[in-house]
């Protein structure tokens, strides 16, 4: 609390609290109530929409459901809203559970469309069942001031409730951002498939975000309905509410914990101002400005206000006095050279090869329509071995990896990994957790995360705590020689480093078997040499490796054995020397009659 970084925000919040308690002008109190309530609601939206990148335009479904649940329980059954609020949260959970799994199969704008449709359906149903909801005539909530009813005579109390709500949502947002869930959401927002193959169960991760987000929205809805004391399906379930929640986050800064609060402080007063000053005189004009603002924000400051003010804020902090005696060290534990992670990962003495098969592939086939991508391929790999897979373009190498890593399900045949049948498991994250890690031919870094954070996504596969996960990530970064770039954004580093990062991320998931898909393509000879050493190093720490590669000298010197694929079939298998002299291999690469040339 002695650093400006800690005490300054605290002071700001304290100031706000004092303002709420001391001011008695209804105008200001109404304004601050709306600002804080919407900061909380938009913060709830941001957990799914910002952190997870799932642009819901149907959050009014949760809002309306929460508002109606608590209010109907209050009006019809006399249950106080402070309890009804939790019933509302329960209903929101139920809705999230029902719509989540199907909707998360949809991407981008399709997800938005589905969420709009769901909110519309709820609105229509709320109008239709008028015996319960009073339909379009609206539901009036009796004014019975009491804390249990979340209804008060003084607006200060209302503002205080909204303050608590906003702070609660903010605290949850910060906690998520620093947790495993937060890292996994950020990862799947950038690269769905890569996240999946680093052990992130993307569907459940999104589901967790939706549950939290929907539940918090319902909570805020109860507070709101006890404030206005009147519900009507067309306003409670309206798409305008949903858009507003998204817009507030966007203006403040999408995917940042504090963004929605900043956005709300800007947008809500502006809306109130436009509504009372312009909307009163000229119907619709305030919303023209609002719509124009939305377009302008998207086009001119997609990062939100926070991108503009964060530097100024830092500058301000640096000028504030620090009360701690010593200068605080930036958080950076010195990474150990080769630490406990690699030691614990190594389950047999270095250098000695065990004779047990780690993976066994039997008669594997996969076709796409008429194309036989892989047919009847069988092979096995010994623990601690490096197997190279080569073959001309279109030979089916990547398809084979996709089957081993759970992206595709084979049509025929099976794969046993450490004695366990895995070919039926069509889920990359499950196979990653089982110990098969893979990289992608086209690198898929999480571009908006730092190098360190990228690797932490990998270490979160088996770790829950942030600290432990960071230690592992630093250790791995040290191992692959990327630790001096740990704070750079993944989009800023070179291709060779991105490929290293790809390997580092997957190493952090502690694989037993590593599938490397063309990690050397596009690298300079020196970089190829470094990559070769890295792979040999990885093997020396007890990890079995299968590499797909086109860089022949590298793969020949690396591999204990080489397997050759052509047109989906295994042509041959053997040591490097055997393979290069094999007539069938030469024919596969150069075609018939090459000797005439």
């Amino acid at each position, binding site marked *: 609390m002695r650093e400006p970084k800690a005490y300054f925000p605290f002071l700001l919040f304290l100031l706000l609290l004092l303002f709420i308690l001391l001011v008695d002008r209804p105008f200001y109190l109404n304004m601050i109530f709306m600002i804080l309530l919407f900061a909380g609601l938009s913060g709830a939206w941001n957990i799914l929409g910002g952190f997870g990148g799932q642009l819901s335009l149907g959050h009014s479904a949760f809002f309306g459901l929460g508002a109606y649940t608590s209010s109907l329980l209050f009006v019809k059954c006399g249950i106080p809203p402070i309890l009804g609020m939790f019933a509302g949260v329960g209903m929101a959970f139920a809705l999230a559970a029902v719509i989540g799994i199907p909707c998360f199969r949809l991407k981008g*704008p*399709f997800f938005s469309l*589905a969420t709009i449709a769901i909110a519309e359906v709820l609105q229509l149903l709320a109008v239709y069942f008028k015996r319960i909801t009073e339909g379009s005539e609206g539901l009036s909530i009796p004014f019975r001031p009491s804390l249990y009813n979340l209804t008060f005579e003084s607006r200060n109390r209302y503002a205080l409730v909204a303050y608590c709500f906003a702070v609660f949502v903010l605290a949850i947002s910060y906690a998520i951002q620093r947790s495993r869930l937060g890292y996994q959401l950020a990862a799947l927002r950038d690269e769905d498939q890569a996240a999946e193959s680093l052990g992130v169960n993307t569907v459940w991760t999104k589901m967790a975000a939706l549950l939290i987000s929907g539940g918090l929205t319902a909570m805020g809805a109860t507070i709101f309905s006890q404030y206005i004391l009147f519900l009507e399906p067309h306003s409670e379930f309206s798409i*305008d509410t949903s*858009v507003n929640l998204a817009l507030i986050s*966007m203006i403040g800064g999408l995917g940042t914990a504090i963004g929605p609060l900043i956005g709300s402080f800007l947008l809500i007063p502006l809306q109130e101002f436009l509504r009372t000053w312009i909307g009163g005189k000229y*119907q*619709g004009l305030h919303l023209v400005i609002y719509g*124009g603002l*939305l377009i302008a924000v998207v086009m001119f400051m997609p990062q939100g206000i926070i991108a503009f003010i964060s530097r100024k804020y830092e500058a301000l902090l640096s000028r504030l006095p620090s009360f701690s005696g010593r200068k605080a060290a930036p958080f950076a534990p010195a990474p150990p050279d080769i630490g406990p992670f690699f030691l614990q990962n190594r389950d047999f003495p270095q250098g000695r090869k065990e004779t047990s098969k780690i993976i066994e592939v039997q008669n594997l086939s996969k076709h796409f329509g008429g194309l036989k991508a892989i047919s009847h391929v069988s092979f096995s790999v010994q623990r601690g071995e490096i197997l190279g897979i080569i073959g001309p373009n279109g030979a089916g190498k990547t398809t084979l990896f996709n089957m081993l890593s759970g992206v595709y399900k084979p049509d025929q045949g099976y794969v046993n990994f450490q004695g366990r049948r895995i070919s039926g498991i069509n889920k990359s994250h499950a196979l990653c957790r089982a110990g098969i890690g893979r990289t992608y031919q086209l690198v898929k870094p999480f571009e908006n995360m730092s190098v360190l954070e990228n690797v932490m996504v990998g270490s979160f596969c088996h770790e829950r705590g942030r600290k432990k996960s960071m230690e592992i990530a630093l250790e791995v970064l040290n191992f692959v020689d990327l630790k001096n770039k740990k704070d750079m954004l993944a989009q800023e580093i070179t291709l060779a480093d991105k490929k290293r990062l790809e390997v580092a991320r997957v190493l952090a998931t502690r694989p037993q078997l590593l599938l490397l898909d063309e990690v050397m393509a596009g690298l300079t000879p020196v970089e190829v040499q470094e990559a070769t050493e890295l792979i040999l190093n990885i093997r020396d720490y007890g990890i079995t490796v299968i590499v797909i590669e086109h860089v022949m000298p590298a793969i020949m010197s690396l591999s204990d054995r080489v397997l050759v694929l052509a047109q989906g079939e295994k042509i041959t298998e053997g040591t490097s020397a055997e393979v290069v002299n094999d007539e069938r291999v030469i024919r596969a690469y150069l075609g018939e009659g090459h000797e005439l040339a």
Partner: protein
Amino acid sequence: MIFIQILVNGLLLGGIYALISIGLTLIFGVVRVINFAHGEFLMISMYISYYCYSLLGLNPYWSLLINFPLMFVIGMGMDQIIIRPLRNAPAYMQVFATVGLSILLINLVLFIFTGDYRAIDLPFAKKVVQVGGIYLNYPRLIIFSATVLITVLLYLFLKNTDIGKQIRAIAQNRTAARLMGFKLNRIYMITFGIGSGLVGIAGGLITPVYYVYPTVGVYFVLTAFVVVVLGGMGNMIGAFLGGLIIGIVDSLSGYYIDPSLKETVYYVIFVLVLIFRPSGLMGLVGAEEMGMK
């Protein structure tokens, strides 16, 4: 008999939905943008037809000659001004931008023309023809025929003309099309123009049978989303069939279930289609994953 009458009503209604959806699906298929302001383009063209009639005495069918080119230009303008800078932005940015335009247009019209419901009093619009005990309303018959005609013309245009072929090529593979030297931006702009022009025609044609008011587009565009997803995003024939199906569902569920629940029925269909066959009736499998970035 009543069942057949309802079916026919549904089919005619479906013609309207199909007409509105064809432009939307064309724009999505090529430009890969879901235009949330599509309904507002419909609304604007309805206002154009309304004022052409009430101020100039121009029959709404004649004012199509104004509607199409005007909406064509507006569509191209929207593409160049709003969509072009966001071409490579994440999909949610484009969603936001078009939602913003939709809000802006609705309220601009509300501000200028107020929220009053307006209708043109065309005696012709009330004429009904009876065929074998089934009543058919003239303007709706015209809309239906126009929808069929437009679908065929659009199909021929895409199949046979130079620009049409370029449009189809880009819809299938942008990167390849760019490598072939196509001017992508120009084609996007023209496609956006055509799609908007078509909804302009739709607006003109439905003005005799629907009230004109600022939020009329919202109702239709939500239905159009359902139709487009049902037919398969980017598929013209799919949009046509999807429109007819939704029209029939609308009319049947309005009669047999409850008029106020008919939208619920097709939203449920919509969500089910999104979940179980996101590529729609005729769409390419996996299309829902495209346009993602």
